[in-house]
């Protein structure tokens, strides 16, 4: 073989040692999520590399927000030989239950740089209130 094309040994070692750790991202639940709580809203961030906005579906029903979709496979030429394939095509589905009332009509989402950001505003009843002492 004229052309060598290997994952360097250093990285192989690292993979073995961290076999199930977060260093091997393909083994984590997909998509990875952050949930950030603010005074007036909750922001959910999902890592969705390789997805266009039409590949993602967000629903909200009975206090549960569900994120689902499918990552399409790369279009590769027919005569191509695959050397590394870590990116498995898969559908995904993750749900988040809210423990407070949500202003469902104002939920918004934005996908940029492979990061989906869903802003879920709190309903008036769920916002923190300051009570004045008379």
């Amino acid at each position, binding site marked *: *073989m*004229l*052309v*060598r*094309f*290997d*994952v*360097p040994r*250093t*990285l192989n*070692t*690292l*993979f073995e*040692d*961290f076999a199930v*750790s*977060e*260093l*091997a*991202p*393909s083994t*984590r*639940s997909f998509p*990875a*999520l*952050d*949930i*950030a*709580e*603010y*005074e007036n809203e*909750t*922001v959910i*961030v999902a*890592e*969705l*590399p*390789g*997805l*266009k906005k039409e590949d993602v579906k967000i629903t909200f029903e009975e206090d549960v927000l569900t994120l689902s979709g499918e990552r399409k496979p*790369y279009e*590769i*030429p027919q*005569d*191509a*030989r*695959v*050397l*590394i*394939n*870590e*990116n498995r095509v898969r559908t995904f589905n993750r749900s988040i239950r809210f423990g407070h009332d949500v202003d469902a009509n104002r939920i918004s989402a934005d996908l940029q*740089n*492979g*990061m989906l*950001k869903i802003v879920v505003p709190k309903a008036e009843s769920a916002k923190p209130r300051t009570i004045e002492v008379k």
Partner: protein
Amino acid sequence: MGNNNRVALVRVGPKSLMKRPEGLENIIIPVTDVYETAEEFVLKLDLPGVEKEKINITIQPERLSIRGEAGTTHRDEASLLLREIGVKTYYREFNLGEGIQHQAARAEFEQAVLTVILPKTDAVKAKIISIR
């Protein structure tokens, strides 16, 4: 990313699982696909959360290294209920054999997927044809 970090990557014992080498605490190896055609090698790496400007691709005769810095996702006042993403540095390197036209390497970045295309030299292409 110089040689220092490379040395640090060489050996990380299983018992050090909780404690990564200094400076590499947040290193993530990006999920990668690589395929080869008669004309070129194509690498595709997931770099979610990375701006195009924060990607650094270095190609040397024997090594291609790719580094990307993902920015912070949340405002300061956030209280995090779940944190699976975090702030990350992506890093991965690949050993390259002979037969790659380094000068002609090119890259694209779309939907947080970095595509690096490494065209083969004519000598290698010719060799492949003669094998067939």
